[in-house]
């Protein structure tokens, strides 16, 4: 077992890659009362065009299939649904699907061996029937309808559809009702066979446990199972143009307040800096431009353009970074004008840079306070950047002002899409 230590924050991450390819990350906190264990695959809603096992050609599967598969893996042959089984034992179980990851997790306080085995087993024993696939369509349709009643979901769905031209990152995670109605048990099996191989999966455990004991449980479980040889995953290559799909769109919804969202689609390949490091620099830029400490935020509040804050988010998709900026406003055009102006002339002083670095350090260390959040951070750091979470601390410490200035000088901020969501009555 490899140990990745950081003495400054007094934390150690244990890592091992098993014989079948499964990677295991363990981070313990003896002061916790429980354990969170996640079993994840590097497969999400954007991976739905690929060459299925034993086939030669690409197949396009319906949008939303990864999320559908997540629901269906809880089904067991000759046994009760895994959700029910864990719940009966008092173990918290759940799962989620994102654009690039699907994860199943437990939070438990006792019977570690039995529960860890049950988690690995239910995910690794798919059971799909025509009947149970049909049944799930009703449940997922209601889930989609529920999300449709959140105005921000509609705003973001449109925003990403308009950002990307071809890349499946543009599609919503759950798909639309018409997509999921097409899904068959054969589709699920094709997706499962390619993406749920141990070579494409990893386990993350956080909380109070003995690292040797838990690794042994996972190893023993995997050693008992036979897996087909792993064939590399052949995803359809997607040529994504630099330009956004659509510059601007105004949509209507059941909202009380107008909302505006902007995506900047920024080419980053020429920067020659790894995305995990870029993310910190980009965060500094965006926080400094728009959060409550910024001049523009203060000015826009005074002018009644803003009443609440500006939300920011950063994604990395192949050669691009996407910066999302979202706010509620009665004056969307004025807000847009101000945002565009700030983006054209990005400025960060050295003092601001040092202060934001303190914020990043504080946030990083604070993650270790919460086994749920920490577990998820380790998952996403692995899925997004293929590195371990603890190494990020050294990156933050080494961030430097001169490098930031060089990056800013090289950014092309001309490519953006804007979506405005207005009330149906306006």
């Amino acid at each position: 077992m490899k140990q990745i230590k950081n003495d400054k924050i007094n934390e150690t991450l244990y890592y091992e890659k098993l014989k079948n390819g499964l990677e295991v990350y363990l981070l313990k906190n003896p002061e916790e009362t429980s354990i969170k264990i996640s079993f994840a695959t590097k497969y999400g809603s954007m991976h739905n065009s690929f060459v299925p096992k034993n086939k030669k050609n690409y197949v396009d599967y319906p949008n939303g299939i990864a999320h559908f598969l997540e629901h269906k893996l809880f089904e067991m042959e000759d046994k009760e649904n895994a959700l029910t089984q864990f719940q009966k034992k008092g173990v918290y179980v759940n799962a989620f699907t994102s654009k690039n990851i699907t994860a199943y997790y437990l939070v438990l306080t006792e019977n570690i061996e039995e529960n860890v085995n049950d988690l690995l087993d239910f995910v690794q024993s798919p059971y799909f029937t025509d009947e149970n696939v049909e049944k799930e369509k009703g449940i997922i349709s209601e889930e989609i309808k529920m999300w449709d009643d959140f105005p921000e979901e509609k705003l973001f769905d449109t925003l990403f559809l308009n950002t990307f031209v071809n890349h499946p990152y543009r599609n919503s995670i759950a798909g639309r009702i018409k997509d999921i109605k097409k899904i068959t048990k054969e589709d699920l099996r094709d997706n499962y066979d390619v993406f749920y191989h141990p070579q494409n999966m990893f386990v993350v455990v956080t909380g109070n446990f003995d690292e040797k004991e838990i690794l042994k449980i996972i190893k023993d479980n995997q050693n008992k199972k036979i897996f087909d040889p792993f064939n590399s995953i052949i995803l359809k290559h997607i040529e994504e143009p630099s330009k956004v799909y659509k510059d601007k769109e105004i949509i209507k919804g059941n909202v009380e307040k107008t909302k505006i969202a902007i995506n900047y689609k920024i080419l980053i390949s020429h920067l020659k800096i790894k995305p995990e490091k870029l993310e910190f620099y980009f965060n500094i830029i965006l926080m400094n431009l728009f959060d409550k400490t910024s001049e523009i935020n203060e000015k826009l509040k005074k002018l009644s353009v803003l009443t609440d804050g500006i939300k920011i988010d950063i994604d990395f998709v192949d050669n691009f970074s996407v910066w999302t900026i979202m706010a509620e406003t009665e004056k969307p055009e004025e807000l847009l004008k101000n945002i565009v102006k700030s983006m054209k002339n990005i400025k960060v002083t050295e003092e601001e840079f040092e202060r934001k670095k303190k914020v990043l350090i504080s946030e990083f260390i604070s993650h270790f306070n919460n086994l749920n959040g920490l577990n998820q951070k380790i998952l996403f750091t692995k899925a997004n950047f293929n590195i371990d979470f603890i190494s990020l601390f050294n990156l933050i410490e080494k961030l430097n002002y001169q490098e930031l200035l060089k990056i800013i000088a090289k950014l092309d901020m001309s490519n953006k899409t804007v979506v405005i969501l207005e009330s149906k009555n306006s």
Partner: protein
Amino acid sequence: MDYQKISGQGFNLHLIEKKLTKRNIVEIRFADKIKYEDITKRYFLNEYLISITNNYPTERLLSIKTEDLYNVHLGSTIERIGNISLFVIGISFLNEKYTEKGMIDQTIKFLKEIVYNCNFNEEQFKVIKKRIIEEIKDEEESKKYKATISLKEAMDKNSPFAFRRVYLKQLNSLTLQDIKDYYQQVISESDINIYAVGDFSFTAFSKKILKNFSFPSKPKLFKNNCLIHNKFRLLSKKVMKKDKVNQSILKIGFKLKDLNLFEQEYVMPIYNEILGGGSNSKLFNEVREKHSLAYYSSSLYSPYDNVLYISSGISKENYRLTKKLISKIINDLQQGKFTEEDITSAKNNMINRFNMNRKESSFLISRQVLKQYYKAKDIDEVIKQIKKVTKKQIIDASKKIKLDTIYFLYGGESNETD
């Protein structure tokens, strides 16, 4: 876990040890009996206090200060438990060993500035007022919130369980002077407790708090802190409301009659767990898994309000079927049609949740608050009592839930056509 209670000037200090934590928490809680006429000014003051001070006269300068202190999280909220309203101001901050020497002192000084050196002025008053108006619009936008509050108001709009966070009518007549007066009232008439959770020396930390904080208030004892209902409907009330929603929301409210303390603390939570607590509950299994009618179908028990709610997001055309299923589940439970396995599973889930949360800072504070105002027991004692609950006790308690109101927020059909 180590715990110590110390008397300060006008408040009690509760020190709770949380070893190896990276962030420490200090919360000041001003408790009083809830009053309808104070709702909005209480909420207003709570937001105002953390917005600006005399030394940090703009929101921007105040935010910059929080970042200089290694990103102190400053927050405020109003909580309600039964008849008690808690006005909370709190900070969480990184353990000093990860920052710089002297950071704790600076952080406590900052909290002191927030509590005692508020900058009340007309300009900021307008800013906060506008922000609250926007928050009211947010509530209108959230259909789930709207359905929940409408159900409660339909049940009994004069009872504290149905009070909103804030009322536009009260907001419109509020003045800056009202807020200043109310500030004086809060610091001089509340029951005040300071909770500190973290990895620190009790002696050194308590000295810092006792030196910096004092209030003109005296600790208070409250009576009748639980909501007790006197009116029960013989025929349930039905409210159907059309709205612009893709998914219809069914909410059912029950009032609980004559529960004894044991039932309230230990039996009803188990009943609720069996009914709609999680993915092995009757509601989840019947409404979602067997009939594929919903994505969520669950129940919520509010012990100190003596109420229980059921929620489900469904398609409009499934209203009758869902209602019928729920009614059958309630009747079955009253007739004892559930197994020992159901009970064990419910108990396991509750115990597991307690064990999962027992070292969480917010949980540690909330348990102390419940002990103080509701004589709640230590977690180990609660678990011991839960284990003792029998099937007969659950059946008896299930007969004390009285259907009050069925609320249905329905829309047109989904925007999608198949």
